[in-house]
């Protein structure tokens, strides 16, 4: 791996406690996210994926360990695309973007960005519409444009396509890859869907049920990645079998 890390995670531990019982979701994991890379983290439900993202985003505090996010203009600017779009229903598409304008960006300059990113996600024509007038896929595109508009050091995505039908989701994945190529935006993408993880990432981190990193693979498959492509199928089969090996190992413990 080459390039500078934008996120460095060292020995990250998260223990939830309700006073009586303790539940460890992240047992001390470490990894770096390199600039312009597309990292997917795949793991079963309850493996601590969302907790990891929330700690990076500052929504939750870790129990131990460190998260360093590269700082730009005094703040670690993070874009976050949630499972549901989380748009303000009473604001138009463009006002939803303006809502997150950082204080150090002039409104005029921000409107320039707004135009650029709405164009990029293909929503220039609906910029004055309200969220309820858009389909689920379009709402999620607004969420992506909003995240990009703050020009984050890293774009965090928490299963952003899991609420969409598969046809729309597949379209969105291709769109996201195009956006990634055009912007060279660093992306940290979380999913429970192994096929999605293999389709998108150029690096795949696999978590087990206990939140341990069991695999950290470079994915050097040609793009676009399709099931008609033998190399893709072989790689995908390999990842799935590694997952099953991991699952059996954890069950036999």
């Amino acid at each position, binding site marked *: 791996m080459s390039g500078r890390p934008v996120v460095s995670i060292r020995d990250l531990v998260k223990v939830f406690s309700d006073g009586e019982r303790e539940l460890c979701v992240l047992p001390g994991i470490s990894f770096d996210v390199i600039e312009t890379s597309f990292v997917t983290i795949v793991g079963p439900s309850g493996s601590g994926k969302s907790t990891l993202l929330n700690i990076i*985003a*500052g*929504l939750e505090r870790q129990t131990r360990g460190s998260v360093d996010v590269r700082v730009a203009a005094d*703040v670690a600017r*993070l874009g*976050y695309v*949630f499972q*549901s779009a*989380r748009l*303000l*229903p*009473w*604001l*138009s598409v463009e006002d939803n973007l303006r*809502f*997150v304008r*950082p*204080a150090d960006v002039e409104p005029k300059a921000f409107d320039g960005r707004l135009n650029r990113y709405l164009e990029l996600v293909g929503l220039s024509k609906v910029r004055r519409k*309200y969220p*309820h*007038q858009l389909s689920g896929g379009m709402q999620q595109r607004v969420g992506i444009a*909003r995240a990009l508009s*703050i020009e984050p050091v890293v774009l965090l995505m928490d299963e952003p396509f899991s609420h969409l039908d598969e046809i729309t989701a597949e379209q969105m994945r291709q769109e996201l890859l195009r956006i990634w190529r055009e912007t060279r935006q660093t992306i940290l993408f979380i999913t429970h869907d192994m096929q999605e993880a293999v389709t998108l990432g150029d690096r795949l981190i696999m978590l087990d049920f206990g939140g341990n990193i069991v695999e950290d693979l470079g994915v050097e498959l040609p793009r676009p990645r399709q099931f008609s492509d033998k190399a893709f199928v072989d790689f995908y089969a390999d990842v799935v079998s590694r997952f099953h090996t991991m699952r059996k190992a954890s069950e036999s413990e």
Partner: protein
Amino acid sequence: MSSAAADVATATSAGTRLGRAISRVVLNRRWVTFAVVVAGWHLLALAVDIDLFPTPARVFDKILEALAGGLFFDQLADSMLRIVIGFGAGLVGGTVVGLLMGSRRFWNDFFQDLIVLGLSLPGLIYALLTVMIFGIGLTAPVVAIALASLPFVAVNIKEGVLALDKPMLEMCRVYRVGRGRLIRKVVAPSLLPFMMAAIRIGFTVAWKVAVLTEVFGATSGIGYQMRYEFQLFSVRGIMAWALLFGVVMLLIEYGLLIPLERHFGRWRPKLERVI
């Protein structure tokens, strides 16, 4: 709707638009309600045939009288002044209490029982007490109205605070949205429907208490007029003033509250389209 379906809809709607407009006015359920009530009232008045129970036409005469002489508008203005000041105070106080209760455990526990008590106390008690304590003047009705309406505003605002969308607030945190913008663009619009409900309920409570207070301790206002008619033993008079009072309430609902709601609810999906 697909474009073909839309074309068909446009073609048919042109011919029936007038018919639909007519049926909408004639068959509007509210007009039906109104007509049934007036007709029933008229028949009942004829059947009982007591001078004290007048027909709608005779009450209507009395209404015209009150309107023509300008008496109604003078009394309305006096009542309105008390309500605007009293309910204004109740609205501000109730909003503050509601915000505190919704956001701070301590204040919720502190106000909880007082609010329950306030909600259940009859308006008459406020009216009697304030008139006895403050005498005749502006203070008694204003204090009574403020005290009676405050709990209704407070419970609504509290519910609004509790209903704030937590995931949305999380989004605001991730994007480091400033406090001012958060309040203007997230908190205020979220509370707005609750504020409208608070105004609606609080305002009706304010009216009732205003009239009651005026019955006991005022020399003007709609309540005072009611007492005057009562002393004359004029059922006609009381009915006329009650109806005028009702008309004013409806005018405020349709002329002020609903347009306000429409204005602030522009972003909402149209109900017709949803159904």
